[in-house]
């Protein structure tokens, strides 16, 4: 019984996405069955649209920079959390979680007011700052449970063996936490690549991919949206797979290092 | 009071797919006793307990309580309660409400619930802890809460699943004494699962020693310790010396086993042994008497010359290993009153033991 339900649940999640993917390859502009043949024309149209190409590029830039910023700030927060005594720790985890407990509407509106008052023009920079703010809580939540298992005595042991503070971090802490940090960075990238609710408040003249799709959605129902969506999904999946491969490779290297047989190449 | 056993297990079996967890279990549990299911991990003792509790269904056989079949009865309707290994206390309730949980599920009037819970809290000596949250009490106290939460329902059988495994040594010894006291006060029948022989020997009225899904020996702690019926039983409960030999005669009350350095005589009952069998003579180290060779007395059966290989003082005891001429090693123990060591490593000694401490067991294949 429960098994059947679980399958139904998965089907509910997957069905709409499969439909979108299917119609992205539809030869006719109609978004209904019967299916009238396969074609890549929508992808070609999309590629010919300079607005799409620049939006896609902008999204990659924004997501890359935002995920790097998030990873640096977030890793520091996670490392701080295991060092602080309970009260400051609670305060820090509260403030670093709060931004996602509120609808993006609040964050977007208040950033809009802030940037305007400070006289900052809306551009990709403001989008990057907003995305970093949005991704940071997710990053910290994703990383903190793993970091909680990190044994601070390992750093002390390294210091005892003559490492400087920085060496202890670079040679002990960072390698141990790297897989977790990479995982968090990828999550941030995907979140930023997809963010729209806050973006509509802080975006300038240079559009991001979701903003471009939103403008298409507002205007008409066109299969171009399907094609753009499929590209967005494929891109996100590629990034995730890349991350998975990196993590898998890392785990394998660690394992073989433990067993004592070096990896060839 | 009827004369039948409280719980009867009749040729009970349990299989998980291809894996046979329990085979042909026959066991009577008597009213008011502490019956221990003892065995190594994976021997089926926990499965057997879960079948009695109702969390697992037997694949075959019968389970009777007071003579009536219990198999179809779900756990919530069995007059049986359980103390879990990791206590499984409810973290959202305090000590008092944890203990009251079962009574409230039975819709007992609240005044009676509170009355009974208070009495139970006194019995397990948790008075000052009644209002504490589960996160605020120690392991030993959690153990008492788990015990009280089960006992307050006045079960006919209380099942205890390795209840002391998570406690450290000192508290474990204290809790053993407490379990005994509480059992004597309430008179509840206990079924106690453990892999710890010491707990089993201290606590039990009877021990059911289990291995590979079977009951190997069912007997009192003394019988099982001094008269094991198998090499498994002998080895599982404490340290033991094993000397291989051949049965040369089986008399009315004596068995003679010959080995290369002499003859061993046992006055214990023989089971499934015939003359000519290769057997193991099993003797506990504390039953072996050793004297320095200079003061040697008569030789004869159960008396051997030996060379001391090692002597290790352990506080008030002396633990020594001696080698018989054919190379068989025999460990023995002696009490020690002061720092003096009566034996030198390498010296000759004479070792002997009485007939009644020797168990003659079929050699394992």
């Amino acid at each position: 019984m429960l098994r059947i339900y679980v399958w139904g649940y998965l089907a509910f999640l997957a069905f709409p996405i499969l439909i979108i993917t299917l119609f992205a390859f539809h030869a006719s502009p109609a978004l209904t069955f019967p299916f009238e043949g396969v074609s890549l024309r929508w992808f070609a149209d999309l590629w010919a649209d300079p607005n799409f190409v620049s939006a896609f590029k902008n999204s990659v830039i924004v997501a890359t920079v935002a995920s790097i910023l998030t990873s640096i700030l977030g890793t520091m927060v996670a490392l701080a959390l295991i060092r602080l005594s309970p009260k400051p720790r609670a305060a820090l985890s509260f403030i670093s979680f709060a931004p996602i407990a509120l609808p993006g509407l609040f964050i977007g509106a208040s950033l809009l007011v802030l940037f305007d008052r400070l006289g900052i023009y809306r551009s990709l920079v403001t989008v990057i700052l907003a995305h970093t703010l949005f991704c940071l809580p997710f990053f910290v939540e994703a990383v903190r449970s793993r970091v909680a298992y990190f044994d601070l005595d390992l750093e002390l042991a390294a210091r005892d063996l003559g490492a400087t503070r920085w060496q202890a971090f670079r040679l002990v802490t960072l390698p141990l936490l790297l897989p977790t940090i990479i995982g968090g960075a990828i999550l941030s990238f995907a979140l930023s690549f997809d963010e729209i609710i806050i973006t509509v408040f802080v975006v300038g003249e240079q559009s991001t991919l979701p903003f471009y799709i939103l403008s298409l959605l507002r205007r008409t129902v066109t299969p171009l949206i399907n094609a753009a969506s499929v590209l967005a999904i494929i891109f996100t999946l590629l990034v995730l797979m890349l991350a998975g491969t990196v993590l898998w490779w890392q785990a394998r290297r660690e394992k073989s290092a433990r067993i004592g047989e070096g990896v060839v190449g | 009071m009827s004369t039948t056993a409280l719980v009867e297990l009749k040729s009970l079996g349990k299989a998980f797919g291809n894996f046979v967890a329990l085979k042909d279990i026959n066991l009577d549990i008597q009213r008011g006793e502490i019956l221990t299911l003892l065995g190594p991990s994976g021997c089926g003792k926990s499965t057997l307990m879960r079948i009695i509790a109702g969390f697992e269904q037997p694949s075959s056989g019968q389970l009777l309580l007071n003579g009536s079949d219990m198999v179809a009865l779900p756990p919530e309707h069995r007059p049986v309660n359980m103390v879990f290994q990791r206590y499984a206390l409810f973290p959202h309730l305090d000590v008092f409400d944890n203990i009251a949980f079962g009574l409230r599920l039975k819709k007992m009037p609240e005044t009676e619930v509170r009355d009974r819970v208070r009495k139970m809290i006194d019995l397990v000596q948790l008075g000052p802890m009644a209002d504490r949250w589960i996160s605020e009490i120690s392991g030993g106290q959690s153990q008492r809460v788990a015990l009280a939460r089960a006992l307050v329902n006045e079960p006919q059988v209380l099942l205890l699943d390795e209840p002391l495994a998570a406690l450290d040594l000192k508290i474990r010894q204290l809790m053993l004494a407490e379990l005994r006291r509480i059992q004597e006060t309430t008179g509840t029948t206990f079924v106690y699962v453990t892999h710890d022989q010491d707990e089993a020997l201290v606590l039990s009225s009877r021990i059911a020693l289990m291995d590979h899904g079977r009951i190997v020996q069912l007997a009192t702690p003394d019988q099982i310790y001094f008269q094991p019926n198998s090499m498994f039983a002998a080895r599982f409960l404490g340290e033991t010396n094993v000397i291989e030999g051949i049965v040369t005669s089986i008399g009315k009350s004596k068995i003679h086993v010959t080995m290369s350095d002499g003859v061993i005589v046992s006055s214990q009952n023989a089971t499934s042994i015939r003359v000519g069998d290769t057997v193991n003579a099993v003797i506990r180290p504390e039953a072996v008497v050793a004297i320095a060779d200079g003061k040697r007395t008569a030789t004869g059966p159960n008396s051997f010359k030996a060379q001391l290989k090692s002597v290790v003082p352990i506080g008030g005891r002396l633990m020594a290993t001696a080698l018989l001429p054919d190379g068989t090693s025999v460990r023995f123990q002696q009490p020690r009153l002061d720092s003096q060591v009566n034996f030198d490593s390498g010296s000759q000694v004479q070792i002997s033991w009485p007939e009644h401490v020797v168990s003659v067991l079929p050699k394992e294949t």
Partner: protein
Amino acid sequence: MEKLKAAFADRRERSGFLLAAPAFLFLVALFIVPSFLLFIASFWQFDNATIVPTFTLSNYLEALSRRAVLYSTLTALKIGFWSGLISTVLSFPVAWYIAFKTRSNVLLYLVLLSWFSSYLVRIFAWRTILGTQGIINSALMSAGLIDKPLEFLIFSPLAVIVTLVHIFVPFTLLLLLSALRNVTPDHLDACRDLGGTRFDILRKVVFPIAYKGIIGSFLFTFILSAGDFITPQLLGGRSGMTVGFMISNEFRVSGNWPAGAAMAILLLIVFLAASALTTRLFRLLRLAPGVRYHPLQNPASASRR
């Protein structure tokens, strides 16, 4: 020795503060300060398309007296309530299945994968499925079951709720799952052993222990759905006029921030009240942890929760 240990703890704490500083400053600059700014802006005045920083309550009075604000708030709360409830209820059995019935995490990964397919993509997907020319309507029409498209499928609260549920279900699954991991199989067995039925197990053991995740997943979805303005706008038709949409319009179209800010603050107050109410309700239904059901035995030494 004690002194040495204290010195170590002290240095550890200090390095903790140093590490936290950049993120803390970032959050102060981009979250705390802007939030206060939004609050302050709600008392400014909007005059002749310019913003005058004064102090006036007129934005609040205006917002509270407009029918459109009231109705759009009710619409938003209705959408939020049903999205929160349905996502939580839908995810609970799956979380249960993952927590107690299967050891593998494959299912979880599959669900998380769907999380990474964009928000807008899903809105568009449901528009394709539910639209008047959509898959469901055209299928029903070609099967001859209906003559003209079922209008209520699209541009209705139904379409909005279905889409929001689809968007938030992975979140609720994660929250519920991590909460259910606090319940051990032994807890379930212990409850049955003490005489509890399956329903008792759910109500008296699982809900109180997993309370945080259950409340969290409902409130999280409720607040984010009720505050959403893009899904209702694209799928809700006339019912898409949620308060979130009105607020975003004040900021992005008419430029009347003070009005938008006042409405946002009011909405925030409604959210806080709804959260408090939900928590309260769980306590009343005895589904919350940390409540005693007996008079204190040792009133002097008991600690509060």
